[in-house]
């Protein structure tokens, strides 16, 4: 939980004396900030789903990988910009390597087979991280400029503002990439039909490797945010689970849907914490609320809010 993302200026204990409309606004703002991280993680999932119809259950572990790579990159003592460049480069390599080893051998099979293998990948990676990191949480410091913003009575903490900025930036870059670049177009083409793509000489193997490399980068950014506001731990990949309702609410193949889905889920979660839990008297209902929300959305719109409806000519 992103505690202290918002604090009253007087420095009262979080949420203790805030009431009524104030509390509602606080919960809302907090949800949006929390949602920003979900947006990033969900984007990673959607990228992979778009080009291969594979649902990546290992997305949370890609997040953890990001945290680890950032530690590695920052241990070099380079300036911050270089650290970020090295971090993204390592993530590209990591994503490509995972794709080559785990995903490539299953290419051309049913996407379900690959989807299942991502569950195996996730279990394996958690084990691997435990060996590498140990079980103690590690602090990850990111020396980004302080962007703390005061809004009325509240403070938006720097980490949250950066999360939101990163989320927006990744979405923007991805949208432009898919829309206007040569490889972005080719990735969308491959998503529609691998066989067709191969017949037109598109190297679908490379496309898939590229997809995973980019997805790993995006997830790593999300992981970095999670590790920054909390700490880096071998099993922090469980945040990836929250990405599942986010992508399903937004629509599996919609980048823009991620933003809406992520923010909605963030808001639902924090409203649950501040309003529903006290009202119901149940601690921990927050863990269920995203899925309950997902259930309601899917009942009303089975393709998610922005999912692609199939083109059919009449």
């Amino acid at each position, binding site marked *: 939980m992103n505690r202290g993302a918002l604090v009253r200026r007087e420095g009262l204990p979080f949420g203790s004396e805030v009431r009524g409309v104030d509390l509602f606004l606080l919960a809302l703002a907090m949800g949006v900030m929390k949602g920003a991280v979900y947006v990033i993680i969900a984007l990673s999932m959607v990228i992979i789903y778009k080009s291969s119809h594979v649902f990546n259950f290992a997305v949370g572990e890609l997040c953890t990988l990001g945290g680890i790579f950032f530690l590695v990159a920052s241990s070099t003592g380079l300036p911050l910009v270089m650290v970020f460049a090295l971090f993204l480069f390592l993530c590209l390599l990591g994503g490509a390597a995972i794709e080559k080893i785990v995903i490539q051998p299953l290419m*051309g099979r049913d996407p379900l087979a690959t989807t299942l293998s991502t569950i195996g990948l996730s279990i394996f990676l958690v084990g691997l991280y435990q060996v590498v990191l140990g079980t103690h949480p590690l602090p990850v410091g990111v020396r980004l400029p302080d962007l703390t913003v005061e809004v009325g009575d509240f403070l938006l903490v720097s980490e949250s503002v950066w999360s939101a900025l990163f989320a927006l930036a990744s979405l923007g870059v991805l949208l432009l990439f898919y829309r206007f670049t*040569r490889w972005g*177009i*080719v990735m*969308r*083409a491959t998503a*529609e*039909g*691998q*066989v*067709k*793509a*191969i*017949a*037109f*000489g*598109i*190297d*679908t193997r490379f496309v898939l490797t590229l997809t995973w490399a980019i997805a790993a980068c995006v997830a790593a950014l999300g992981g970095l945010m999670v590790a920054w506001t909390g700490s880096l731990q071998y099993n922090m990949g469980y945040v990836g689970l929250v990405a599942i309702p986010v992508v399903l609410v937004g629509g599996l193949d919609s980048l823009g849907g991620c933003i809406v889905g992520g923010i909605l889920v963030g808001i639902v979660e924090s409203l649950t914490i501040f309003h529903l839990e006290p009202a119901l008297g149940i601690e921990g209902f927050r863990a269920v609320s995203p899925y309950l929300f997902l259930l309601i959305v899917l009942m009303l719109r089975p393709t998610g809010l922005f999912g*692609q409806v199939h*083109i059919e*000519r009449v």
Partner: protein
Amino acid sequence: MTMLKVENLSVVYYRVISVLHGVSLAADGHAITALLGGNGSGKSTLMRAISGILPVYEGEIQEGEITLGDVKLNRLGAVDITKKMGLTYLMEGRPVFEYLTVKENLLAAANCRWDSEVGRDFEQMLAYFPPLKKHLRSQAGLLSGGEQQMLAVAMALMTKPRFLLLDEPSLGLAPLMVKEIFGIIKRINEERKIGILLSEQNAVMTLKISSYGYVMDNGRVVMDGPADELIRNADIQEAYLGGTDRKDKDYKEAKRYRRRKRWMG
């Protein structure tokens, strides 16, 4: 001159289902060669084998050899065959990317050869196929069947092929559209000097624009010859043109049966 040669080709699917039994053919690198045959005669399988896309369908070349010019295609992957050998296979059923716009479709197809002439070829495609120009920004899935087929042919050309395999390009199109598509194919062959292997059910029109033809049945080539000879052939006429002018129907039935027997050989 580049020739596409297939020698004694045998193909199986799933390791057991034998589909082609020793097919041989040769297609001129500058002409249109017709490949006729009914449903399930093995035309598509032959094209998949040539283009290297067979493994996607769990198929495998058991024996035989495929050569383009003097390069053996058997061992090459599908992407290399398109990219390096310049042989493009246009699958049957309008293989366009439906959610991409027309422009994006053309660019995606050009990806394998991305050189300085992509822009020029792009303009040329719009000149070849005027209807595409109107719909550059609309999704390909929303075009009419004929427009989609035009787009598919244009996409195949964007890969800058030396040789084209066209699999039933007129399938499911209105008669007027069929005529237009055939006109386009002939024009491509003449203007761009691209060799074409054209698989079709529409025998007369195909033979009219081809120089040589092969007839397949049951995974074998059962007949071949110059197009103008085939078009006069009684067997072809019976099989594809809805019968000959003979009045005595019973006799015809008997005769067709005998002819089919002879093909099966």
